[in-house]
């Protein structure tokens, strides 16, 4: 981002006349606006995708009236929600009630600033990018507790309670499986992680050995749980808790919760694509770092993200919901030990690979090749 702005200033005469700080500020604001637009418009489209896919799965049609194939349905929904009465319950804790959806949305949205949409297409190319994503998305929990508490409704409190228990628990396997990739990559910078996976398909981190392969599925499952997607949608289990923590929210405040959920879905799908599925690498050696080619890279990353989003929707409409004790069981007795094993296994793989072959992934590829060979035989 800074590099790009510097280039812009160097190349444009009238920008050089302005103070550099001002140009930076404006640039950052514009980038924020772009990300905001991207994430919220795309979230709207993901809602449409979800409704169409679920329609297909359920032998019905889904929205197809507003715009081509119903693509603009989210605009119609947004207008409807904006025109609704904004109800704040009389017993609610007003300031907290109002602040909660903003905080929830902030958590989902702010993390986009470190996600590389393509080479160089990143608002802040930080060397702690991965860490920042995991940290910022945790803010969402606070917003949810606030929503549940401030509503002063029992269903909302119960929903918030479930949410907190679930999200805080699933941070552990989520963080550990992401850490496994950080071990392989040796960096937390998401652009670097993506760049390391360029080249052929087997350079993708998901194919760098059995432990990395397992880590992908652990990451995806834990992400589903911390996104409150079915089968982990207990915090808003509509048949049990009415609507969980946002029971008392109406109109656009409700829409913001909705947008935040879908933004977070996009965020985690993108993160999984960058960490495990090679980022913008198409699976064969091609240079996508050029000023024009990076937009092709963006398209490839977007396709991978869309696929992961589709899987999330697919899972949601296929499975019943877990019970809270099963969710905790799955987290602490299955996912957590497995992700620890993954981290240990990957450390061993990196160590052995470096010592014996001088390539950290060689040992893992050898193991994986053995597995594939065995599978074919």
């Amino acid at each position, binding site marked *: 981002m800074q590099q790009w702005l510097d280039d812009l200033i160097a190349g444009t005469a009238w920008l050089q006349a302005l103070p550099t700080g001002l140009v930076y500020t404006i640039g950052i604001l514009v980038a924020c606006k772009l990300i905001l637009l991207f994430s919220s418009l795309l979230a709207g489209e993901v809602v449409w995708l979800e409704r169409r896919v*679920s329609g297909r799965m*359920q032998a*019905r049609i889904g929205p197809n009236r507003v715009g081509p194939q119903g693509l603009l349905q989210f605009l119609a929904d947004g207008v409807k929600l904006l025109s609704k009465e904004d109800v704040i319950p009389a017993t609610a804790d007003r300031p907290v009630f109002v602040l909660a959806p903003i905080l929830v949305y902030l958590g989902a949205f702010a993390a986009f600033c470190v996600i590389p949409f393509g080479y160089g297409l990143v608002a802040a190319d930080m060397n702690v990018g991965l860490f920042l994503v995991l940290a910022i998305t945790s803010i969402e929990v606070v917003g949810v507790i606030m929503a549940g508490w401030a509503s002063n409704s029992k269903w909302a409190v119960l929903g918030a309670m479930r949410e907190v228990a679930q999200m805080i628990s699933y941070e552990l396997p989520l963080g550990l499986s992401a850490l496994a990739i950080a071990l392989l990559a040796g960096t937390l910078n998401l652009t670097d992680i993506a760049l390391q996976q360029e080249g052929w398909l087997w350079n993708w981190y998901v194919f760098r050995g059995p432990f990395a392969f397992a880590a992908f599925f652990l990451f995806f499952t834990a992400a589903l749980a911390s996104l409150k997607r079915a089968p982990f949608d207990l915090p808003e289990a509509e048949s049990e808790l009415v609507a969980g923590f946002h029971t008392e929210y109406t109109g656009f405040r409700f829409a913001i919760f909705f947008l935040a959920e879908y933004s977070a879905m996009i965020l985690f799908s993108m993160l999984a694509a960058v960490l495990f599925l090679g980022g913008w690498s198409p699976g064969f050696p091609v240079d996508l770092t050029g000023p024009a080619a990076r937009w092709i890279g963006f398209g490839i990353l977007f396709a991978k993200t869309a696929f992961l989003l589709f899987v999330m929707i697919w899972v949601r409409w296929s499975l019943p919901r877990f019970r809270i004790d099963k969710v905790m069981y799955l987290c602490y007795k299955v996912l957590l030990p497995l992700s620890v094993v993954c981290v240990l296994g990957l450390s061993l793989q990196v160590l052995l690979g470096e010592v014996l072959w001088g390539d950290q992934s060689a040992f893992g590829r050898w193991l994986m090749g053995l597995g594939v060979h065995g599978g074919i035989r």
Partner: protein
Amino acid sequence: MSPGGVRGAAQGPGGLVPGGLYGGGGEPAAVEFHERQELVGRDLRTEEMVFNMGPQHPATHGVLRVVIRTDGEVVRALQPHVGNIHRCCEKIGESVPYYQWLPYVDRMDYLGAMCNEHLACMAIERLAGIEVPERAEYCRVIVAEVQRILSHIFAVGVYGLDLGAFTPFLHQFRERERGLDLLDHLSGGRLLYHYVRIGGVKRDLSPEWLDELRAFLDAVERRLPEYNTLLLHNRIFQDRTAGVGVIDRDTALRWGVTGPSLRAADVDWDCRRDVPYSVYDRFDFEVPHGHSGIAGVVGDCFQRHWVRVREVEESLKIVRQALAGLPEGPVLANLPASLRPPEGEVYVRAENPRGELAAYMVSRGKDTAYRIRCRGPSFSNIAVITEVGEGTLIADLVALIGSLDIVLGEVDR
């Protein structure tokens, strides 16, 4: 905010009991919970919350209101409240002529209207000593079993919805709509038919309708394994239902539970086989009942679901046999314009999709009944949650209520 949690709960036990919410002085008496305060460790005290689950709650299948007292997510005590949809069905029957009562019977259990009509007609016929043509009996069995199939696949799908699986719910609607169309073509109504009449049935079954029926039966048979893939054989579904809400044999008998819920508790009892009415004794069918050979504990939610799925298969068998043996002849007996049964009383029972529906009817020789009293299976089935629901999680309570497959219209009548 008060430090105790939600303000209502901070008022202590009974903070939001119905008296406070509704202002009615008399009602809290019905909510007698034993006081219980849990001490967790030495310093941390958890408080119990009183929830009003319903009458407008997605999982209560209508207007059931359950007042539950929870400790966190654990239900410590609960009390179902009924009466929100009372429509005086029995009382109306005492003031209108016998012929005119039948449409009201449809509305008791609106998912089993054909079976309700069947029972009401049987009661009146036995009271008046009316002989029903044989073909009409076969027609009645066919429509009653189609109704049972529709009701059971609906129950199976809705149970998925209760557990958070939306897809099977809409999948079963595809077959259900087909079945509703079928009954619509026969009777002119989608849910409330008024097809079974005193002394027979309204219309004869046409050959075209019978073809339509056969296609429907094939469709259900083909789709049933699909529903099972989505629910019965699903690991999460089994986790959610196996061993949950166990109504054992003793409890089921004590509370008067009937229907699939009774059979799931390993009580081999089905009115169609054990007190045969109509022409059910001519058909060969099994009565599925819960046992330890399938997943889960005898009498748990899973087995109740399983019994329903198996009963759909048996109903398909019965309809096919009835189709094969369908005799020729009239479908409606000749009856006087005003029916005046001789003095007397009858008690008739029938196996409805939800359990044993029974009617007690007294005649004093007038053209209206002197007294009518119905026994709705949903009423006694829902009562059992008072005992079984204690100590479960809220999610399990939803699974329990869903697995009993109640219709609130029949609870209150």
